[in-house]
C-alpha cells in the first residue's frame, strides 16, 4: 500500500437531523493521511455539522465512523481529542478574561511540583515556543479579550495544533484573517500534513482552496455530491456542484454615474486608533478601504458611526456638518454599519431571525402607542429572507441555530431593512458562500445605481479590487494610499498597506 494515500478515517452514511432540518443525509467521505481535504458547500450545506459529529459535539442519528479501521463513536469532544481529533471552530469561544497562554492550555495547565498550582512561567514559555515554531507573533501574557479577531483566530489554531492530533479540523479559519496571516497558516498546514497527519479544511474562498487542497468534497443541502482531487476540478465545476447551476461573474461591477460628495471626513483622529484621516465618498460610488488587520479600518468606520466618537475632526453629510455622538445619530442621518463580528456586535443570539432583522427598522414600524406594525414587520422580514436566500426553517427560528453564513446574511438583512443612504460594510462577505457573495455584491451595485454611497472594508484583495471605484489604504491608523480604479495594482496597494511596517524594520 502506498503510504501517502493511506486512509485514516472513513465516515459512512452519516445522518443528522435538527428540529425541522435534515442537516446531513447519508454523507460518506474518506479522509487520507498527508492530505488536506477541503469541504465545500453553500451556507447551511452541513459542513460544520459533519465536523461537529466527527469531533464529538453532536451525535449522529445513524451511520458509522471508522478511525484507522476501527468503529468509533465520540460522545464528547474530549473523547474525540483522545482519539487524535482536534477542531478549530467557525465561531470562536475564547475566555476573554484569561491570558492567551491560559486559553491555550485550559484544562491541561503545567503545574508546579505536582501541586494544583499553575506554573505560569512554564505555560508562557511553552506557548511562546509554539508560537515561534509556527511563526505567530503574539505575547502569551496578553489578555485574550484585548486581541483582535484575527489574533484570536491564530491563537485558536495554535491551540489546536498543540494537541498534535492525527486529524486537524479547521472550520473557516481564514474568514477573519488577512493575506499575510493566511500564508503563515498555509505554511503551518503544510508542515502538519508532512508529519503524516490529515487536515480537514473548510472555506468559501476559491483562490485559497486551490492553493491548499489536495482533495475537495462538495456537500449540498446535507447531501454528499462528490469528492475530487483538487488538480482535477475547475472553479466553475466546483460552483456548479455547490449551487447546482452555473454562476457567471464573481465580481460583477456595474458602471454607475458618480455624483456629489455624500460623506466628507476631515482630519478625524482618535488616539491610539487612527489620526488625521480625511477622505470623501460620493453618491453612486463604492469606496473601498484596504489595509492589514489592525490597521484601524474597523475603528475608523465605528468612529464615524458614533460607536466611539472621534476626539477631533469633522464630518459632513451632503455638505452639512454633522455631529454623530451615537449609532442612533448615525442611523437617523441615514447611515448603516454592517460590523465585522456578527457574534459580538451584529446579532442577538437569544432571539429569532425576525426580531434580529427588524430591530433597527422597528422605530419606523411603530404605530400609535409605539406598537409595532406586525404585518409590515413580517412581510418586510420575509421579503429579505427570500431576497438573501437565508436558509432557516422559519422567521421565528432562533438565529443561534443557523449556520454561520446564514447568520451573516441576517446581519446584512437587518441593515438593508433600515434603508440607508450611506452603507458601510466591514468584511461583509465573511463566511458566506459564492452564491450569497454574488448576491451581496449585486446588492451593493443596486445601491450605488440608486445614487447611494457604499463604503466597504475587505481583507480579500480580489473582492475589494473587483468592487471598488476608489480605494483608500490604511496602515497603522494613517492613510497611506489612495487609488482610482484605473490605477488598481495589487502590489502597490499591498506596499501601501505595509508602509509603516517597512519603515519600522528599516
Amino acid at each position, binding site marked *: 500500500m502506498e503510504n501517502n494515500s493511506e486512509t485514516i478515517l472513513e465516515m459512512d452514511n452519516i445522518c443528522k*437531523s435538527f*428540529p425541522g432540518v435534515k442537516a446531513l443525509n447519508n454523507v460518506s467521505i474518506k479522509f487520507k493521511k498527508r492530505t488536506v481535504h477541503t469541504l465545500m458547500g453553500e451556507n447551511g450545506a452541513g459542513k460544520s455539522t459533519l465536523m461537529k459529529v466527527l469531533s464529538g459535539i*453532536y*451525535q449522529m*442519528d*445513524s451511520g458509522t465512523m471508522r478511525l484507522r479501521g476501527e468503529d468509533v463513536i465520540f460522545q464528547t469532544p474530549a473523547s474525540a481529542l483522545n482519539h487524535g481529533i482536534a477542531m478549530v471552530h467557525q465561531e470562536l469561544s475564547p475566555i476573554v478574561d484569561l491570558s492567551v497562554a491560559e486559553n491555550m492550555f485550559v484544562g491541561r495547565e503545567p503545574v508546579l511540583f505536582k501541586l494544583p498550582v499553575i506554573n505560569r512561567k512554564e505555560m508562557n514559555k511553552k506557548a511562546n515556543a509554539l508560537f515561534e515554531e509556527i511563526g505567530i507573533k503574539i505575547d502569551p501574557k496578553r489578555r485574550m479579550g484585548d486581541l483582535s479577531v484575527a489574533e484570536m483566530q491564530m491563537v485558536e489554531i495554535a491551540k489546536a495544533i498543540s494537541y498534535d492530533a492525527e486529524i486537524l479540523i479547521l472550520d473557516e479559519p481564514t474568514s477573519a484573517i488577512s493575506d499575510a496571516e493566511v500564508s503563515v497558516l498555509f505554511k503551518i498546514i503544510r508542515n502538519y500534513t508532512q508529519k503524516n497527519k490529515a487536515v480537514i479544511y473548510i472555506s468559501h474562498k476559491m483562490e485559497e482552496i486551490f492553493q491548499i487542497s489536495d482533495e475537495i468534497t462538495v456537500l449540498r443541502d446535507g447531501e454528499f455530491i462528490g469528492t475530487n482531487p483538487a488538480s482535477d476540478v475547475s472553479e466553475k465545476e466546483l460552483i456548479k456542484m455547490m449551487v447546482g447551476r452555473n454562476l457567471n461573474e464573481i465580481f460583477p461591477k456595474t458602471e454607475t454615474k458618480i455624483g456629489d460628495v455624500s460623506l466628507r471626513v476631515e482630519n478625524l483622529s482618535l488616539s491610539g486608533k487612527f489620526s488625521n484621516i480625511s477622505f470623501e465618498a460620493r453618491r453612486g460610488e463604492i469606496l473601498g478601504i484596504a489595509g492589514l488587520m489592525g490597521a484601524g479600518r474597523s475603528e475608523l468606520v465605528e468612529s464615524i*458611526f458614533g*460607536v466611539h466618537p472621534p476626539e477631533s475632526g469633522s464630518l459632513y453629510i451632503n455638505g452639512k456638518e454633522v455631529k454623530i455622538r*451615537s*449609532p*442612533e445619530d*448615525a*442611523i*437617523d442621518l441615514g447611515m448603516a*454599519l454592517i*460590523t465585522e463580528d456578527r457574534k*459580538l*456586535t*451584529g*446579532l*442577538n*443570539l*437569544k*432571539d429569532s431571525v425576525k*426580531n434580529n432583522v*427588524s*430591530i*433597527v427598522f*422597528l*422605530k419606523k*414600524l*411603530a404605530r400609535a*402607542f*409605539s*406598537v*409595532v406594525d*406586525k404585518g409590515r414587520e413580517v412581510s418586510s422580514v420575509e421579503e429579505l429572507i427570500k431576497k438573501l436566500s437565508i436558509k432557516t426553517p422559519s422567521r421565528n427560528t432562533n438565529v443561534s*441555530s443557523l449556520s454561520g453564513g446564514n447568520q451573516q446574511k441576517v446581519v446584512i438583512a*437587518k441593515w438593508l431593512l433600515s434603508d440607508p443612504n450611506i452603507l458601510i460594510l466591514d468584511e461583509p462577505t465573511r463566511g458566506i458562500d459564492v452564491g450569497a457573495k454574488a448576491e451581496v455584491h449585486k446588492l451593493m451595485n443596486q445601491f450605488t445605481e440608486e445614487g447611494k454611497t457604499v463604503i466597504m472594508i475587505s481583507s480579500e484583495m480580489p473582492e475589494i479590487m473587483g468592487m471598488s471605484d476608489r480605494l483608500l489604504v490604511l496602515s497603522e491608523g494613517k492613510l497611506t494610499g489612495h487609488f482610482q480604479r484605473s490605477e488598481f495594482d495589487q502590489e502597490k496597494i499591498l506596499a501601501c498597506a505595509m508602509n509603516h511596517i517597512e519603515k519600522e524594520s528599516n
Partner: protein
Amino acid sequence: MTAILKNIFNISNKKLLKDYGLVLAFMGICLVLSILSPSFIKPANLLNILRQTSINGILAVGMTFVIITGGIDLSVGSITAVAAVVASSFAHPGEHSIVFVIFSGLGVGLLLGFINGLFIAKAKLAPFIATLGMMTIARGMALVYTSGRPVINLSDQYNYIGGGYIGGIPVPVYIYGLVVIISFFVLRFTVFGRRVYAVGGNELSAKYSGIKTSNIKTLVYMISGMLSGLAGIVLSSRVMSGNPSAGTSYELDAIAAVVIGGTSMTGGVGTIFGTVIGALMIGVINNGLDLLNVSSYFQQIVKGSIIIFAVLMDKQANSKD
C-alpha cells in the same frame, strides 16, 4: 425506523415540555393539592390565593422587565415599604384626595427606581450592588420617615384599594390583572418591549443597532420601582397600616416567580405569562402547605426545593442536543 420514530417522539416530547412544561407542572401541583386537601379548590380559597398572589405578582412583573435586560432589582421589598409609609401618611381620613395619595406612592417608587437606573445605566454599577445598596437605604428611609412606628388611621377610601371587592372579586386582583395586561402588551407589542429583549440578549449589538441602551436600562428600573410603589399601596391599604418593615424579603419571592416562569437570569429571554404562572405557583404552594398544616419552617424547605426543581426542568427542556 425505530430511530426515526424515537427521534420524532423525542422532538415533540421536548417541544411539549418546553412550551407547556410550566403550565403542566402548575396543573400537576394543583391536582395533587386538591386531592390532599378538598378545601383547596373551593372558590373562596382560590380567590384568596389570587389576592395573596397579587402583591408578589405585581413585584414580579416589574422584576421581569429588569431580569430580561440581564439585571436584578433587590430593592423592590424596601421600595414597597417606602411607598407604603409615604402613601399612608397622606391617607388619613379627610386630608388629601385619594388620587394624590396614590400618586405619592407611585411617584416615590418611580423616583427610587430612577435612582437605581442612574447608578446602573450611567455610573455603570453592577445591578446587584446598586440595588443592594438601595435595598438598605430605602428601608432606612421608611424607618426614618415613620420613626419606626406604623402609620395608622387610614381613610376608608384608601383601605378599599386593598380590602374591597367588586362583584365578589378582591380589588387587588383587578389591579394585578391590569398590571399584567399592560405589561404583557408593552413587552410583547411595543418598540420599547422589543428593545428590552435586545439589550438583554446582546447589549453591544443593541448599541450598534442604534438603541440607547442606558435609557432602556434606566426605564426598566423605573418600571420596577413604580410597580413596587403600587405594591406598597395595595399592601398598606389591605392591612390598614403603613408599616416601615413591610415587604421585607419580598424581593426573593419576586425573583423566584420570575425564574420559575422561565426568564433567564442572563437576560434576553422571558415572558410576562411565565412570571404570572410562576407567581401563582408560589401562591398555590404557600396556600396548599398552610392547608395541609405543614409547619412554616418546613414550608421554606419545600418552596426552595420547588424553585430549584423548576429551573432544572426548564434548563433540561431548553438544552440543545
